[in-house]
Structure formats: C-alpha cells, structure tokens
C-alpha cells in the first residue's frame, strides 16, 4: 500500500516531467490507440464500484466507465479498472495512470481548479451521514459531542466532519485510516463511536458488518456531495465525451429507451430527438469526435441511467432514487439537450 503510494508519488513527478507534448484530445487518441479506457475505481463500494467474486467490476460508476468505452470504442467491455483509495485517486489521474476517475468523487471548487481536475457532470447526488452502533442509544447527530469518529483521509467527508463539529460547538476525535475497508472494520471492532461518509457509502458499508442490524444510520445529512466523474484539466475533448455519455444515459431514460428496446426505437421512432440521440440523423457523434451511433452503443450495451441505477444502487443497497430521480419525477437529473 505504501509502496504503491510512493510509486504513484514518484510517477507523478516522472510522468509530469517526461510527457512534454500535452495537447487537447490526447487522452481520446491514446484510448483509441491502446483500445481500452483505464478507469480509476473505488476499492470496494458495493453499488458503485466493487469487484464480484469472479473479479468482474460492478456498480454505477463502473457502468459509466463502460458507457464511455462504448461511446469511444463501440465496445463497452473495453474498460479496465484500477482500484484507488481516496488518498491515491487524484495523483493517479494527474500522473495519467488512469484516463478517467469514476470513483464517487465530490465536485468541489478547489478540486476543479487547484487539484487540476475537470468534473464532467454529476452521476449521483449524495450527502454525508453518520452511522453508529444501535446499542449506543444515539438517535441524532447532535448527541455526538466527544465522540471518536472513524474516517478516510483526503476526502471531503474529513473536512465536512470538522466543519460540522466546529459549527455545532462539539468536539470529536478522528481516527484516520487510509483504506476504506480497514477503516470500516476498525469502526465495527468498536474503536470508534461513529463512522461517517456519504449516505450511499454508509448503506453500502453497513452491509459488510458482521450483523448489519446492529448499526443504524442517523437521520442528519450534513453536506451536499455531488459525486461525479473527473478527467484531467485541459482535456476538453475527453471531458465532453464523458459529460455527454452521462447525459445520453439520462436522455434515454427520459425517452423510455432501454437496452432491450433501443433497436425498435432506432428502427421505428419518428421523434427527431430520439433520431439525433441514436445517430440515425444529425452528426452529434462527429461533433464529439466519435462515431454517430455512440449513444446507441451506450444504451444497447450498458443501458440507460435508470437501468444502471436499479441493478446497482437499488438492487445492492436498497436505496431509492430520491434526488437522483429524473427532473420529470421530482429529482435533480436534468439532461441537457442533445442537438
């Protein structure tokens, strides 16, 4: 773990130093040349990004990565995954170890600027919550004064936690463990009173407890966590493809197009919007620098956003759409027009 970090740290200097000829479109060209998309993924977060027992990666973030592969290369299976801890993820992206970071990363101002990232949209609207042992008798975050809190370092969670306790005039003692799985196990062992991360993460980690019913998630949500895919700053062409791939998945859901019926839509639909989306008319793909049937490939091979959400987040974690419903259903998912 440590050596990996040193390698990552070393390579950031080395690669930053050696790759002189950086230019727009470089990442897309390199993806086409090598024939796959290299994605930075979470090490193990069921519903978002986790390996199955057969070693196949699954999750909402993983699907987005497959979708990008389908859009650029026409084949969703041409995606490879690098598991990264929170502390490793930005360095891995900056040093070009991965092309795309699809790892439940919160979009913030400093990451968008100083850290050198470009966020290409929000694929999950989340907020930070707290998990405690049921036996502690705690029912509200306002009762947490003096608590010991297990967290992952290098996250917005870590900063929100300090902010929240400062604002409430309460004290806390952080126990900071780099690997999320180990941090959660440390919490289950009783070292900490509280574990805190995004609410979706709490739902996911709670299932890994020896007995999930021994733990409850407190009702308070203390922050806004718009989680989204990120690419390197200055990589506009690739950022556009990622952004519009996500939008295409939302648009497909809004139009009722699924992986099962996309062929029928492509053949029969008289809706100009659907025709543009599926590439039967217009040159949307060309504008992005990919083939015109890019969105068709995404929907056919990966599915629309709702399908991805249902088979990952809903099936694995039992979470409802909530904020992540389409705007037509009262949620925040609002696809920009594809035209």
């Amino acid at each position, binding site marked *: 773990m440590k050596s990996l970090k040193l390698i990552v740290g070393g390579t950031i200097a080395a690669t930053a130093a050696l790759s002189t000829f950086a230019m727009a479109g470089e990442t897309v060209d390199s993806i086409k040349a090598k024939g796959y998309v290299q994605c930075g993924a979470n090490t193990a977060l069921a519903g978002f990004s986790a390996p199955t027992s057969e070693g196949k990666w699954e999750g909402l973030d993983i699907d987005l990565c497959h979708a990008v592969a389908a859009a650029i290369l026409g084949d969703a299976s041409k995606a490879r995954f690098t598991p990264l801890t929170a502390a490793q993820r930005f360095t891995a992206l900056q040093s070009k170890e991965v092309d795309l970071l699809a790892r439940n990363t919160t979009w913030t101002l400093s990451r968008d600027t100083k850290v050198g990232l470009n966020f290409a949209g929000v694929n999950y609207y989340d907020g930070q919550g707290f998990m405690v042992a049921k036996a502690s008798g705690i029912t509200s975050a306002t009762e947490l004064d003096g608590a*010991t809190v297990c967290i992952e370092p290098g996250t917005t969670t870590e900063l929100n936690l300090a902010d929240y306790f400062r604002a409430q005039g309460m004290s806390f003692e952080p126990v900071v463990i780099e690997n999320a799985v180990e941090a959660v196990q440390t919490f289950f062992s009783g070292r900490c009173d509280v574990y805190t991360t995004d609410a979706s993460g709490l739902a996911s980690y709670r299932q890994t407890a020896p007995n999930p019913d021994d733990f409850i998630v407190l009702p308070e949500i203390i922050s806004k966590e718009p989680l989204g895919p990120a690419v390197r700053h200055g990589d506009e062409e690739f950022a556009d493809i990622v952004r519009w791939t996500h939008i295409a998945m939302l648009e497909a859901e809004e139009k009722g197009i699924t992986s099962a019926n996309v062929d029928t839509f492509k053949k029969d639909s008289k809706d100009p919007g659907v025709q543009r989306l599926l590439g039967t008319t217009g040159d949307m793909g060309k504008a992005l620098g990919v083939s015109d049937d890019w969105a068709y490939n995404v929907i056919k091979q990966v599915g629309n956003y709702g399908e991805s959400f249902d088979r990952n987040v809903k099936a694995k974690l039992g979470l409802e759409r909530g904020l992540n419903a389409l705007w037509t259903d009262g949620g925040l998912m609002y696809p920009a027009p594809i035209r």
Partner: protein
Amino acid sequence: MSEPLKSRKRLSSLIYSEKARGVFAQILVTGGIAFIAWYLISNTFENLANQGIATGYSFLSLESSFGISEHMIEFTPADSYGRALMVGFLNTMKVSFLGIIFATLIGFVVGVSRMSKNWILSRIAAVYINLFRNIPVLLQLIFWYTLINNALPSPKRALEVLPDVFFSNRGVLFPVPAEHPAYFWMGVVFVIALVGVWLLRRWALAHRDRTGQTFPYVWAGLALVVVSVFITYLVCGAPTEMSTPVLKGFNFKGGAKLSPEFLSLLIGLTLYTSTYIADIVRSGLLSVPKGQEEASTDLGLKPSQTLMHVVLPQASRVMIPPLTSQYLNLTKNSSLAVAVGYPDLVSLSNTTMNQTGQAIEAISIFMAVYLGISLVISLFMNWYNKKMALVER
C-alpha cells in the same frame, strides 16, 4: 611555421594527459546530470501548469480544516497545513524516540539472554528473535492494532487494572499530576542537576587519574538529581492534585492517554527492531576475546566492572555502526503509521496533498524531513562511534 606545430603539440599532449582527460570526463558527467535535472524540473513545472495544478508552498499557511487525534502542540481544524505537518513531525519524533529507547533496552536484555548459559533462557531469546524478525513489520503493526481493538472492551466496560488506570479499545488511560507551575520548575532544576552531574563526573574521573581514588559519582549524581528536584517540588508548594481519567459520555476525560494507534505502532516497531539489536549485541559481545574477560577477572575487577570497563567498551566499537542503521530503520519504518491510523508526518502529508492536490510539494517536504532526521541520527552516532573508538589503546 613553428606556431601550428606548437599548438598541435599542445593539443596532442592534452589528449595524452591523464589529468586533462579526467577533468574533461568530470565536466561531461556533471553537465549531463545538470541537464537531466533541469530537463525534468522544467518539464514538471510546465506540465503542472498545463494541467492547472497549483504549485509552490503557499498552501502551508492556509487553514487545514481537518482534525488530528493526537497532537503534542495545540491543534484545531482552524490551524494551518504547516502546523498540521509540524504536528505530524512531532508525532514521528515521539514514536521514533521512544521506539529507539525501548528497542535498545529489550535488544540488550534479549541479546545477553541469548548468550546465557541457562538453556531455557537462551532458547526463549532465540524463539523471540526468530519470531519477530521473520514476520514483516507491516503485518505485525496490523496484528497489534487489530488485537488491541478487538481484545480490549469498550470504554464503558473498561478494565481497571490498577486504581484509575483503564484499558479499553480507546487506549490505555492513566492519571497524571494536574497542571501546576511546580512541574515546570522541576524540569528546569532537573536539567541544571544533569549539568551538575556531568561536572561531577568530570571531576571524579580527573580525581581518579590524579590520585587513584575512585569516587562513586553515579550514586552521588543520582542523589543530587533526586534531592534537588524533590526540594523544588516542596518549595513550589508540593501540589498533590491529580488529573484522573473519568468516563464522561462517549469517552474518558482527564488523565493521559496512549491511543491504540500509538501503542500498536510503538509495540510493533520496538519488537521488530529489538530482534536485530539483540543479534548486534550478541555479535558485539562475541567479538571480545575471552582472554580479556579472564585477564580482567584475574586483575581483581568485579564482574560488573569487567562488563562495564573491559567488555562493553570493546564490544561497542563493533556494535555502534550496525546500531546506527537499526535506529535509522526504525525511524523510517515509523512511516508505516499510515496503516494503523497514527497521525505521523507521512499520514498528515498524505492528507494535506489530497486536500490541496500538491503532491510534489508535500512529498518533497517529508522526504527532506526524513533525510534530515536520518542525517542527524547518523551524525550523532558517528560522533559517538569516534568517541568510543578513541578508547582503543
């Protein structure tokens, strides 16, 4: 006519001159290295600028806004990144310093036991050495951390081993004297007394060389320190108030605490390094010819005097260089703290580089600090080595 000939002669003599060739080669190598360094550094900055990544060290004065569990100096999330790194540096120094002391003590005891004529004792020492030396230190740290977290009860069911000393999965809590100015002055007097002891020792050794009379400066010095510190304590009002740990809400308040993270790191590093030190001690003692010990016994020296004045000074010449590298190893291994959540320099640098995105700067800081610590330890041990080497007649 003669002019070109002369210059050709000079040139050819340069080619054949070994010195000229040497200088030329050195210029070439130095220039090459300088060029590579310049190329890498300038490209790094250019590429960072292209990616829009911030550079420079100005982030050190920004508010850190994260919490740190263990700090030897005051720290709140409102303090700067620079102060957070300082906290990490002090935590690294704390665990390394204590680790070196305990590893040396245990190493000496085990090393001497390993050579004991008592079969059981020497076997136990051998098992100890082989067990802790042959398991990777990272696994040992995780083992101790998991053990402490899982084996010890929650704070509410903490084990009260001694009155007011609690063992729980929040760490070991024990009472300490409550804050009082007396303790500050006792510290000052303690340092002054140590200087006094040093002067006393100098006088005693000179006196011995002059007259052949020995003066028990060790005992006299000890008495000087104890008595002077105790008198200060009485003069300052003999405070008796203690800060005892009391369970309040989630956690213990008051007293002093050794956290599970700190304990597992300290235990892991100490046990691992002590096995190497034990073998270094053994090899040092074995390197002193048996005749030295026999001769000194025949001269009428007591066994303790033989050990202190004959065997150890000679053994230490063999022991000090490898001990130095073990001390360096322990200090560098303390960076494994990340695995058990102890907020050392590397752990806090990692957090800092993540929150600011300035990996190169943060890494450069902790590399420079480790290099500095290692060089200081090396310098000290080299100085000590030289001092011991002078004993040679």
